[in-house]
């Protein structure tokens, strides 16, 4: 996974894409790689998981070797015009950007190509060993990553048409680029992940590395605990109601784990087993974003060590 140079981390909203991307980036940087991690939507969750208020288009060095940025299509357009069109830009781009924003909304794939183009550019120029993308949620992601293919079929001439080729080449090369889907063991995320793989395969020949199950609840050792007859052995009858409450608590946690296992099994059945990895849920005391990143980094490390 971390041997590729462009890794897209996607999944349904709320499954922890940003946290997993932050953890992967931290682990790769700890291994001595020069890492760029990029948030594609403007929610700012990646910043939170990296312990920052916000991220800019210009990468910030979070820790040695770990750089983070937030995608911004206006800045990307500015850079693009400067690098490729050699049109001098004097002062603000705002009036142009407004018009551009409009056409970009109207002309499909233009906005997406600027975002994906920037990532591909960083990969091509080898400014970093690995670019990890905290990508859009599954639905928008397919449109984004297949933008060069889509645009190539719509625009046959012009600079964009020439530009889409090298981007597609990078994105389609399984040694360079791959997609990792994050999922939580719940119904909708699982359904959406299965759909994502299908839709992605139809839209573009990008490699699909596999699935990471995030927030897997711990196993509850409930042997004998949930058996109501065992209440009789409680030392004093006054404690019986407390004990039976404790048993309900235990049963609730066990059911939560059982539900999660059911969805994990469904995923494992649908994907090849070796391509599904599981990251344990953080303990309730580790709920701050930076604590979650630290926890997930340990989990990612455990998984990577296990694969060797």
């Amino acid at each position, binding site marked *: 996974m971390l041997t590729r140079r462009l890794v897209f981390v996607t999944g349904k909203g*709320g499954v922890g894409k940003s946290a997993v991307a932050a953890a992967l980036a931290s682990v790769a940087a700890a291994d001595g790689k020069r890492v760029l991690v990029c948030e594609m939507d403007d929610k*700012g969750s990646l910043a939170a998981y990296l312990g920052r208020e916000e991220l800019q288009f210009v990468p910030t060095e979070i820790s040695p070797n770990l750089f983070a940025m937030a995608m911004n299509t206006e800045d990307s357009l500015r850079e693009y015009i400067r690098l490729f069109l050699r049109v001098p830009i004097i002062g603000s781009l705002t009036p142009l950007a407004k018009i551009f924003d*409009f056409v970009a909304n109207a002309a499909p794939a233009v906005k997406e190509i600027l975002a994906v183009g920037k990532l591909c550019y960083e990969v091509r120029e080898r400014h970093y060993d690995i670019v990890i993308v905290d990508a859009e*949620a599954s639905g928008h992601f397919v449109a984004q990553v297949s933008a060069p293919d889509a645009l190539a079929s*719509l*625009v046959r001439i*012009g600079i964009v048409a020439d530009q889409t080729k090298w981007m597609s080449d990078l994105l389609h090369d399984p040694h360079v680029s791959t997609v990792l889907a994050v999922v939580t063991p719940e119904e909708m995320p699982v359904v959406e992940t299965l759909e994502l793989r299908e839709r992605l395969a139809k839209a573009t020949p990008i490699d699909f590395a596999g699935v990471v199950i995030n927030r897997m609840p*711990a196993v509850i050792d409930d042997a004998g605990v949930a058996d109501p007859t065992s209440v009789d052995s409680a030392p004093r009858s006054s404690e019986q109601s407390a004990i039976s409450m404790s048993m309900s*608590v235990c049963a609730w946690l066990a059911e939560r784990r059982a539900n999660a296992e059911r969805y994990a099994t469904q995923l494992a059945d649908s994907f090849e087993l070796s391509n599904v990895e599981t990251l344990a849920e953080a303990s309730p005391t580790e709920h701050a974003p930076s604590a979650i990143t630290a926890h997930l980094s340990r989990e990612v490390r455990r998984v990577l060590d296990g694969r060797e």
Partner: protein
Amino acid sequence: MSTDDIATLPDHRLLSLLDESRMIIVCGPGGVGKTTTAAALGVLAATHFAKRVLVLTVDPARRLATALGLVALGNAEVPVHLDRARGTLTMAMIDTKSSWDDMVRRHAPDERTRDRVLENELYRTLTSRFVHSHDYVVTERLFEAREGGGYDLVVVDTPPSRSALSVLDAPRRMEQFFSSRLLKLLTAPTQSRLLSLASRPFFVVADRILGAAFLSDIAEFFTLFRTMEGPIVARSRRVGSLLAEESTKYAVVTSPEPVAMREAKFLVDELRRRNHRLAAVVANRLVPVRLGDGALKRAVGLEASLADPVGQLAPPERRRLEVLVACEREIAAISAQHGSAVQRIADWGALVVTGEDRGGDITDTASLLALGESLRTRVTTERQE
């Protein structure tokens, strides 16, 4: 778990909120149970009031659709059977592509324009791929639902996170779009377009980026689209005022996760900035109160039994108590985290509604009703302006 629900009575403040609303727009980050909450509110309203309720959803979970007895939830409005309901419930999903086609069919000035739009390559790509195209369609559907006279209450489940805001802004954007200089430029004859000084920087860049052929495709599409300006703008204005009406209420759903709450708070602020009526924040997926309450005390009690030197505990019994202690400690920690999350949500100054984590519990309309009836409002202090 569901045996505890039998005695539950619905929250009266929540019921009056449902009673006084004609539209409830449900927003929230992804993965917090937004769609389920919207459906539960719909079931609750249709059960307790003699109202015709419509739930408009963007993407229902399969199991939720099954729970509502819906085989295929397409663009059509599907009646949902409810036991012992005073009102009726209808469910509909918004399919972007077919909604756009319907809209073009409805507003095109003549058959020729209609067919040319429907067959336009750019139109097809736009409606099936263009992310924001969904927002305009929601606008159109809201108009139909409210002005069609078929419903007394419309519950709208919006797309996750800030995409909800672009739905709310869509009517205004649509209006601006038709009155924009850019549209006039794009749809002007090529000759005058090239002469227009204002267009120069744009066309220099646009031509070089996209190629002139693609630009004329865009122009052709917009020229056709402009023929529908009148009715579309009129509707957008009407929906814009519907969204601001007294009887249109907004609810933000969140989980107790810090990152979800951060996003929910952003939505709360943005709704307020737009002067929308934020009726409630639903703190969802909380550990059930009956389990969390007193967990720490029970853990301490169990630990005392474990430490008791008098009663010689048999190893299996000791093991059992240890497991129970671990579970109680776990639930106490989750419960404490959720408690402080709810406290922080209360500081946002809106009515707080708490919803419990029900795992895989939603299997039929009865369980949706039970979910709706288990929602609880919390009294909070008034927001300091």
